[in-house]
């Protein structure tokens, strides 16, 4: 008996200890994702007179994307025989944890992806290398030929993001355009939407209602007008109605603006009043995504990263601008992911060189675009790419218009952390279910979000010391 008990105690102690670890346990992992790049291994290609320089490149992405990037890095190594790149890749949802753990553990990879929203924190704490001088002195890089939207996301002057020195290059820009199922329009005998003139909200509802059908008469809808995930689609409706989550100073939460309420009302009405989208219970991304791919959905947001997947769809789809609210203009979210270098890298020249190869070189871009995982970063190449209407979607031009004209960054990007912004979506379900009115919701939620935003502002001030 006693013997057994001692065993229990030991076991529970070990388990307990591991609990406390959970909070910062990532540190241990850091050594595995580590900085082996900076340790120069004994001349691997000994015939080469130059010393081999090792870089670690940490990135993330879906399978198609991983393959594409691995291919490009191999090509880079072939062109630069004195540089060896060790690739560390994770699934998208584990990436942030792994990166932050390696930063905490002081073993930052030489070259790595990072979210534009984390820029301030990383610059303030000296994690990111200032790329400005490297990029400016490089004759092969023409910043004017890369999307200004994308480049500016990685500028920071110590107070405002969007201006000042450059701490990263956009891996790509991800314009989230609106797609529609062309075959469905043809089957229903509805004229195809205009690719340059957005629907008004009313028009959009009308068309979508015509396309919401119970085909086999079993009382269940088999075809829906649209499918919108609140987190990724609501910003489009809010912005095009002239409202936003933040004021111009980025210190005040403005969701109680009547224009905001109107947009949120419209968003919930699509389901609750007009019934053009699957019910909220069914509207998780996965389901709407599947419905779209099965050809059961008329309108669905399309990002360039899905082009390779949608290529194989049995129906034809194309891109149009989002329906426009009271401003009369479309708006949507444009994502981006930056590639930066560690401020402590032993080979800054090579690290920046690799970044440039992946983001700004013709060779690198061509390979990535060919894999159909992104739109070209280089504007002249993008124009050429968009002009080719033989591949799906025909109106690729829309992607470029999003980037140049009506794409925006999510509000969380402007603040030290996005906790305040995320809370909006954490609590939103009752609104989507019609249990709480949009007006009640924003009134109750604004102070909570403001409190978190104040905290983030305070944190930012502290981090600059």
């Amino acid at each position, binding site marked *: 008996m006693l013997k057994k008990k001692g065993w229990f105690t030991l076991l529970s102690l070990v*388990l307990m200890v591991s609990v406390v670890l959970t909070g910062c*346990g990532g540190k241990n992992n850091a050594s595995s994702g580590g900085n082996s790049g900076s340790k120069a291994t004994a001349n691997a290609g000994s015939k080469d007179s130059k010393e081999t320089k090792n870089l670690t490149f940490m990135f993330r992405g879906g399978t198609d994307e991983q393959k594409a990037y691995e291919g490009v890095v191999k090509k880079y190594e072939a062109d630069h025989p004195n540089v060896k790149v060790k690739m560390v890749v994770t699934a998208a949802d584990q990436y942030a944890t792994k990166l932050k753990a390696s*930063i905490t553990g002081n073993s930052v990879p030489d070259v790595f992806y990072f979210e534009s929203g984390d820029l301030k924190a990383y610059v*303030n704490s000296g994690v990111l290398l200032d790329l400005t001088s490297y990029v400016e002195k490089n004759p092969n890089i023409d910043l004017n030929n890369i999307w200004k939207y994308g480049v500016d996301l990685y500028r920071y002057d110590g107070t405002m993001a969007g201006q000042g020195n450059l701490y990263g290059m956009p891996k790509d820009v991800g314009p989230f355009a609106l797609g529609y199922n062309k075959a469905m329009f043809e089957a229903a005998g509805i004229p195809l939407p205009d690719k340059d003139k957005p629907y008004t909200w009313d028009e959009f509802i009308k068309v979508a209602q015509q396309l919401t059908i119970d085909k086999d008469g079993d009382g269940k809808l088999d075809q829906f007008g649209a499918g919108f995930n609140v987190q990724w689609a609501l910003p489009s409706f809010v912005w095009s109605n002239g409202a936003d989550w933040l004021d111009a100073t980025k210190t005040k939460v403005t969701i109680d603006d009547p224009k905001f309420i109107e947009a949120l009302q419209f968003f919930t009405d699509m389901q609750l009043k007009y019934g053009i989208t699957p019910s909220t*219970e069914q509207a998780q991304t996965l389901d709407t995504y599947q419905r779209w791919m099965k050809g059961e959905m008329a309108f669905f947001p399309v990002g360039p990263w899905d082009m390779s997947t949608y290529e194989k769809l049995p129906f034809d789809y194309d891109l149009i601008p989002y329906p426009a609210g009271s401003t009369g203009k479309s708006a949507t979210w444009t994502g981006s992911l930056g590639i930066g270098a560690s401020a402590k890298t032993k080979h800054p020249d090579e690290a920046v060189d690799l970044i440039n190869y992946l983001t700004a070189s013709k060779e690198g871009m061509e390979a990535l675009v060919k894999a159909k995982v992104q739109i070209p970063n280089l504007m002249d190449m993008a124009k050429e790419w968009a002009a080719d209407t033989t591949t799906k979607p025909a109106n690729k031009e829309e992607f470029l218009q999003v980037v140049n004209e009506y794409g925006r960054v999510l509000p969380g990007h402007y603040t030290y952390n996005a906790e305040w912004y*995320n809370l909006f979506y954490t609590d939103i379900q009752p609104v989507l279910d019609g249990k709480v009115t949009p007006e009640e919701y924003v009134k109750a939620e604004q102070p909570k979000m403001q409190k978190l935003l104040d905290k983030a502002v305070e944190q930012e001030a502290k981090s600059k010391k």
Partner: protein
Amino acid sequence: MNAKLGLYRKEKIYGFLFILPPLLGLLIFTLYPMIYSIYGSFTDWDGLGQMNFIGLGNFTDLWSDELFHKALFNTLFMMLGIPIGITLALLLALGLNRGVPGTTAFRVIYYVPVISSLAAVSIMWNWAYNGDYGLVNQFLDLFGISGPNWMANKYTVKPALIIMAVWKGLGYTMLLYLAALQSVSRSYYEAAELDGANGFQSFWHITWPMVRPVTFFIIVTNIIGGSQIFTEMNIMTPTGGPEYASASVVFYIWQKAFGNFQMGYASAMAVFLGVFIFVVTLIQFRMNEKQSFDVD
């Protein structure tokens, strides 16, 4: 005499040498981070830069943090799966202990979930719980019940996770019980039978007390494991579920630490959780001491 002592001492040194590697590992990878995180819990550390001491600030913040309360409630709620799992496992073990044909096959079947990766299991159940195409709802459909979209409904998401956790842990618990049952000597039952005890009486007065150490072990480890539940919700409800209904304490710690640059605050929660588990475990040991008795 002298030689004997020398040998003894030599063995002692070898012994220490053998346990040195794991001991060093424990010190470097467990004790050091643990102390570091306790220290961190008293700072406003963002995980990147300076650590400023702020006393008990993080802990007082916990009192008014609604999301933390939700996460704590969720974590405790999901422990309802523990008694369910224990009951089911014991019933299964009793069944298998009777030597039904194919016992080995059943053992394997029940044990397969245990050795499967939790991430894979989570992904699989996520499909099963899908409101439209999921196996669970298709099954319910056979009886004319139209099931909810389990993971998207704040009332069903926790039960859904509990069911999955019970299913996952069943084989392990069952196997422990089976081993315990098989070590109970037949003679006790024979004696009880002579005294005219019925099936339930011999279970209640012999089997249940005899497997008590195993029950105790299972409860303690399950509560500790249950307090740290994380992977399931991270994969199945990556935003914490509808209205944060499926976020656990560890999930919230992870969000704060790696999503929001609040490593200090996250450490405070980890310390809180550590103390909580320590206290609960201590209480259980005390209770077990009081209740334990020996079969003479």
